[in-house]
């Protein structure tokens, strides 16, 4: 049996149901992300685990014990908030010590644990500072140390990096992940940022309209999205209409060119998805299907150049890397692009 078990969890606010029949089994030490747009129910689900919301139905078990009836302060769960929520009247050291003090730990233990935690987050000299004297990134690290100081069974993070600027966000996510791995603490991480979810998680739960659309590793979520929503929300995606010629072998007519997907397809029209990085400008080894068309848009992003080309009535976006030897194609230029038919995703009908 898993360490954290959520089964058939439901939550309604009045007549509005915000979480539908949510089930998830989390292994000890696993890092799980809840990914989805705002209003998808990810934060509500997290808050039910923390005890700040009462489920309308369902069970939440940690280590075999049902915690739904426990108050938040009885659950032994660490929580990190988007707004840091450090106690403004306490110093960094006192903030980290807060949970231990409440639990009645001895003074020696508190002192040792606070020093250990501040060492872990790389701020050993700031114990005497007040929160308002710290930068956002430092405050959030202190908040993490405070949550971990009581050695909680589960760590919950509610969009902890959303209030920080881009550079700190990237460095801090690596730091959080490293600390999580080192302590081996079971973690749920709520985010709307797919890059965060993909780079940090063992598994991702993609949520949409109160349901878990797909649960899987970042690789699975990205490469084999289960629903149209997951395909569109995680990563950039081209969608093209194709006509199925032979449902058995998956032969389709795509932008006037035949391609074989090598898997069974429904007869008639299908929507196919293709990641921009699965398309090459010009011929490429292993990408046997070649389409011809003209460039309609060029976005120079630095390392990457994102192009859009019209190919037989369909517009495909795709990426090439920048090189100093060759200027990117111009708008209106005739180009050929290549892709592998195996990389085409079949997108289900809209939910």
């Amino acid at each position, binding site marked *: 049996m898993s360490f954290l078990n959520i089964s058939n969890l439901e939550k309604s606010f009045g007549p509005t149901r915000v979480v539908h029949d949510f089930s998830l089994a989390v292994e000890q030490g696993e890092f799980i992300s809840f990914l989805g747009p705002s209003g998808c129910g990810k934060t509500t689900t997290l808050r039910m685990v923390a005890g*700040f919301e009462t489920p309308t139905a369902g069970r939440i078990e940690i280590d075999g014990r049902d915690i739904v009836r426990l108050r938040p*302060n009885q659950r032994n769960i660490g929580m990190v*908030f988007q707004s840091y929520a450090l*106690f403004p*009247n306490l110093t960094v050291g006192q903030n980290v010590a807060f949970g231990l003090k409440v639990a009645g730990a001895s003074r020696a233990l508190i002192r040792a644990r606070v020093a250990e935690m501040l060492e872990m987050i790389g701020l050993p000299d700031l114990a005497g500072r007040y929160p308002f004297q710290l930068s956002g990134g430092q405050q959030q690290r202190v908040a993490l140390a405070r949550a971990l100081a009581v050695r909680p069974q589960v760590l919950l993070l509610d969009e902890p990096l959303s209030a920080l600027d881009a550079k700190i966000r990237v460095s801090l996510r690596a730091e959080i992940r490293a600390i999580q791995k080192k302590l081996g603490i079971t973690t749920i991480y709520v985010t709307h940022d797919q890059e965060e979810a993909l780079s940090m998680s063992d598994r991702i739960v993609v949520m949409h309209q109160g349901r878990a659309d797909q649960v899987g590793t970042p690789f699975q979520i990205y490469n084999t999205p289960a629903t149209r929503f997951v395909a569109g929300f995680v990563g950039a995606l081209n969608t093209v209409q194709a006509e199925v010629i032979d449902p058995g072998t998956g032969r389709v007519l795509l932008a006037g060119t035949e391609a074989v997907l090598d898997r069974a397809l429904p007869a008639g029209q299908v929507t196919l998805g293709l990641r921009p990085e699965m398309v090459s400008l010009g011929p490429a080894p292993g990408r046997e299907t070649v389409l011809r068309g003209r460039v309609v848009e060029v976005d120079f992003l630095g390392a990457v150049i994102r192009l859009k080309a019209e190919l037989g009535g369909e517009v495909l976006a795709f990426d090439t890397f920048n090189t100093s030897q060759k200027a990117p194609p111009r708008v209106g230029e005739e180009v050929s692009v290549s892709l592998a038919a195996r990389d085409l995703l079949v997108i289900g009908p809209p939910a």
Partner: protein
Amino acid sequence: MTRIWSWIALTFGLIYFALPLIGTVEFSLRMRRGEYSFDAYRKVLADPRFQETFSYSVVMALATIVFGVLLVVPTAYWVRLKLPRLRPYVEFLTLMPLVIPPIVIVFGYLRLYNTSSWLPLTGTTMGTNLLLMFGYATLSLPYMYRAVDTGLRSIDVGTLTEAAQSLGAGWVTILARVILPNVLVAVLSGAFLTFAIVIGEFVLAALLNRPAFGPYLQLMGANRAYEPAALAVIAFAITWACMGLIQLVSRFTRHGRTA
């Protein structure tokens, strides 16, 4: 042109407020014929009844402040946290003491808590003191509640509460260690206002027949010439000291919490 008019308005205002005060101070110094002296103050401060009534009022003020803090901080906190929709109504309720005259309040008390009622608070000295303290708390409620509520607005009550809860804290710990310290400045300014109100209050104390400073002030005013002026100046000084302390405390912390 408008400059001149604003100067005139300002001067008029200053004269309007300052002149009676200057007159009172001047008069209080004239007890000794032909020269200025502090005789009136010396007499007042030496009067045992002054010391009795003043210390009675100070004790009552402190008790009122403690009771007021214990009543208002958890209430304002709870309203902000759990019943935000009731906030305008609660605020309106706390303003009622400004609208209802103290004389009405005290007659209500006397009807409800007289010796033949089911809760005869006026039957004992202690009970009457308690009743007087409740009355003072009611009178200072608008100021105390507003001050605390404003203090709570400056912190993220909901998230701080949740953070403390997730760290294992119960309600009492949250109130004592997280909420109260963060609204302490607001509580202090409410407390100083309460102090000023209680020291000068007359109606409740007189009608409940308690030996407070207000009735003593009135008694002196009716029987003496120079001493009441000295007393009035002392009362003013106390009030101003309280207001100065509010300023001092709020400036002191504004410096500390700019983030």
